Each structure stands twice: as C-alpha cells, then as structure tokens.
C-alpha cells in the first residue's frame, strides 16, 4: 500500500473541510468529516482499503469519543488525527503485517493517532491566527460605512479567504506528511523490532489511551459519586452480560424514561407549592389518598 500524489491531494482537501475551524462548516465539516470513524471510511476509500480504514478509524475514534472544545481551547486537532493519523496508521499496520481485526492493530492506530493529534494542535493555532488577517479586511469594510463594500467583503471573509489559511496549515502539511509517511514507516519497521521494549511501550500506550477519551466524557456526565453507578451499570451490561451497544442504548433509554417521569413528577409537585399557599390543600389531599 502506498500513498500517491493524487491520494495525498484528496486527503489534503478533506483535511481543509474537516478541521475545526473548517471549510465544511461545523456540523458537516468538523462533526461529520472530522470524526475519525467517518474519516476512516473516507480515507479507506481513497487508499483503496475501506475495511482497514474503518477499523483504524474506529480504534482512533474511541480515544476522541468526547472531543469537546470549550471556548475554542483545543487539546487535539481533528484534521491531523483523521487525515494524517489514519493514513499513517494504515501504512504502519500493513508494513508490520498485523491482522487488521486484532487488538494490536487497534493499539498501534490509537497510539499513532494520538501522537499526530497532539502535535497537530500547531495547525489549529496556525489557522486561527492567520484568519485574523482576513478578519482585519472584514473590519476595515465595516469601518468604511459603505453598505456595498460590506456586502461584498463579508462573504469573502467567510467563505473564500480562510481557504488560504487552510492551504497553508491543512493542505500542505497533510500532503507532505502523507507522502513522506511510507519511507518513515519502513524505517520504523527496520529499526524497531516488534518484540523490543520501544514497540511494547507503544502498543501498551495505545491500549491505555482510549481510557482518556472515555475519562473526558465521564467528566461531562458524572457530577456526583452515585453517577458512577449509572456508568457501572452500562459497563456491566456490556462486560458481564454481553449486551452490544445498540442493546445497551435501548436499555438506557428505558431507564431514562423512568427517570424522566420521576423527575417531572417531582418538579410538578414542587411547582404548585412555590406558586402560592392556596394550592397547598390540594396537595395534601392527594397525599392522603
């Protein structure tokens, strides 16, 4: 498997679309094309091995399942993870002769993807900083006070000029790194034996990293210690009872429905009391029954 110039160019274009901030927009670009699982399908098709692409994308997706960027602070860059990390991981898995469905292949992909993603934050800050230049053009139009000039300039600032930032910080890095990836992966194979210490550490890191992604998510949903019981319930459904994710989701919705009914009952009962003392009697009568 190799990456030719044509494939590298396609990967570069998708990197421009999928970035945060990307030219594909937030919903379609960042949250669809930028998700490693979707990227795995796209990169797989571009590189001519869809199955391997999706497997690699899925492995990397776990690490970044809860990539939240509050206030634009970015700890990992989606264009780098998805359109540099996935192609390189695919090359590495093939070069090492690993079974795509094995845990080892997933660990290798997770470790490589995370390394690329962290280094890729440079691209995020590069793009965002360069956009200041285009915004400067926009501000000047606003200050001119001429509607015709504003009407002409703002769409340019929004849809055309940021492409320049992306050619420099998304397109070129993706093309160059993907083209250089194959010899690098070959070197890695020659100098780092699979049973050596360095590779053992790399694969172990790859198996540990998904815990960070899920940990970030827990930070979002777990507020009090008892919430861990809810998490553990879902964990046990899969780990002990063998439920797949769709089955767990259905069970989760069932319990959420019960929770919703209980919660609305509670707040519905509280509301009339807060509204005034006149409704107090009704409330008490109900309880007597």
């Amino acid at each position: 498997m190799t990456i030719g110039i044509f494939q590298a160019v396609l990967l570069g274009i998708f990197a421009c679309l999928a970035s945060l901030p990307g030219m594909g927009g937030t919903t379609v670009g960042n949250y669809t094309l930028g998700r490693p699982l979707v990227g795995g399908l796209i990169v797989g098709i571009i590189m001519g091995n869809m199955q391997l692409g999706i497997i690699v994308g899925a492995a990397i997706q776990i690490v970044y399942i809860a990539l939240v960027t509050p206030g634009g602070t970015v700890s990992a860059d989606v264009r780098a993870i998805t359109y540099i990390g996935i192609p390189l991981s695919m090359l590495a898995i093939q070069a090492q002769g690993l079974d795509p469905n094995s845990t080892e292949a997933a660990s290798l992909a997770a470790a490589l993807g995370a390394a690329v993603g962290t280094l890729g934050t440079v691209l995020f800050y590069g793009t965002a900083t360069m956009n200041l230049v285009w915004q400067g053009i926009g501000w000047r139009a606003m200050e001119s006070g001429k509607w015709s000039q504003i009407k002409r300039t703002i769409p340019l600032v929004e849809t055309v000029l940021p492409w320049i930032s992306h050619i420099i910080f998304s397109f070129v890095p993706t093309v160059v790194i993907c083209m250089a990836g194959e010899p690098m992966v070959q070197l890695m194979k020659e100098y780092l034996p699979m049973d050596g210490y360095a590779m053992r550490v790399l694969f172990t890191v790859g198996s540990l990293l998904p815990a960070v992604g899920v940990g970030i998510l827990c930070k979002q949903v777990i507020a009090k210690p008892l919430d861990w019981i809810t998490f553990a319930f879902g964990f046990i459904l899969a780990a002990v009872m063998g439920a797949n994710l769709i089955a767990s989701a259905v069970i989760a919705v069932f319990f959420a429905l019960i929770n919703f009914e209980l919660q609305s009952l509670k707040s519905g009962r509280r509301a009339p009391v807060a509204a005034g003392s006149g409704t107090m009697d009704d409330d008490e009568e109900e309880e007597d029954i």
Partner: protein
Amino acid sequence: MAEINKVSEKARRQSFLHWIYGNLTCFSQEHMQTFGYLWSMMPIVDELYDKDEDKVDALRTYTTFFNTEPQIGTMVVGLTVGLEEARANGEPMDAETINGIRAGLMGPLAGLGDSIIVGTFIPILLGIALGLSTGGNPLGPLFYMVVWNVLMYFGMKYAYDQGYTLGGSAVEALVGPDSAALRSSIVMIGSMVIGSVAATWISISTSFAINFSEKSSFVLQSTLDAILPKFLSFFFVWLCWWLMTKKKVSPTIVMLILVAVAMIGCITIPGLNTSFFNPGLSY
C-alpha cells in the same frame, strides 16, 4: 407608516444557511464566531432597512464578540432576527438591549450545548456507530453521517424558527428549571452508553504472572477477572476522570502520564521474569 415590516421567508432561510455553514469558517481566537454572525445577519438587515446607512448601523450591532456552542446557538441568531425586526418597526429596542440578550445567552447555551450535544449526544451516536462498524463494516460510519446530519439540520432549523417566533421565552425553556428532568435523563443515557462503550472498546490487560513451581502459579489477570471482568479498563477510565476532575490535570498531561505508566509497566521485573504489560508481539 403603520404597515409592519416583516422579514421574508427567503431572507430568513438565507440567514439560517449562512449561520449553519459559516459560524466558524473564519474563526480566530480573538473574534471566534463574530464574523459568522455578521454574515448571517446581512440578508436580514438588507431587507429590513431601505437606506444604506441604516443597514450599516444595524449590522454594527453584531460586531460585538460572540461565541457559543454554534449548533444550539442557532436559537440566538433566530432570536435576534425577531429583535431586529421589532427594532426596524420602531419598537423600543436598541443595540445595547440586543447585545445584552446575546451576551446573556451565549454562556449558558455554550455550557448546555457542550455537555448535551457534544458531550452526550455525539458520543451516543458514535457509540452505536462503532458497534455497527465491527470488522470494518461501512454501515457504522454511514449511520452516523446520515443520522447526525439529518437530526442536526432539522434541529437547528427548529431552533432558529423557535427563536424567531417565540423570542426570549424559547431560550428560557431550554435553560430554565423545567428542562432539568429532560437534561438529567439525557445525561443518564449518556453515562450508561459510555459505560458500555468503555467495556466494549477498551481492552487493557496485564501480563503479570509468577510461577512458583511447575504446578502452581499466580496470574494477576485471572484474579482481576474474578473481581470484575475488564476491571483494568474500568480502573483506568476512573483514574483518568479522577486526574482530570479532582486534580485538574489537562488531557494532554494525562496522556503523558499514561505513557509513563506504560514505560514503567513494560520493564521486565528482574528475578521474576515478568512485566505488568506485554502485548506479546513478534514478527
């Protein structure tokens, strides 16, 4: 003179499309979504005002910094379209009031959007999609692409229209106390599905074993399995959560800590000829 000047359906659709595409295209750390906002208000002020200087004046209102979770924030854009319409019809509505409302909403909506949409809804969808993509099945990514985009498009359209027609009360319903039951239920689904995701997709195991004699040996992994299957996966998720919430460690540093754990864990313990982690690879 008494005729009410309404924003046309066409201008609203244009403004909506400008926002959902352009909310972050020209993002910078300094102005974030401000230019996306300006672009989406352009068709509105263009239609509402006749004189060019009035258009410029109205649009200047939206040069104030704006940043929120852009998808749920669609509601704010719809809301300001309603406010701008009121202002164009001579109602007592000034730039300060509009910006006060925008500034007051972007914080709470960002928190809500980050935790419900990005932190819970996307992971649930991805979790299901991951389940469908076992063995490289394209059904998984396709499922996510279709379901996410369809739900988001109509969800944002609904938010925009609600913002426009209902005004402030629409957003109130979303962040007000009445929505607490719904939010806690969504978060509950999220916690459970993510628990299953952790058990399904994280596989951490230890290779630590001591042979006492030919017949008796201690294998750490079997002992842990007896406590709870996949105990180590659970433990490491909890550890990462604990480091990030209780110790305020950043995700990048947590990753580096795990690299250190792997480096130490892979060292073969002298005398026992075993290590905590060993993927057992060879060519």
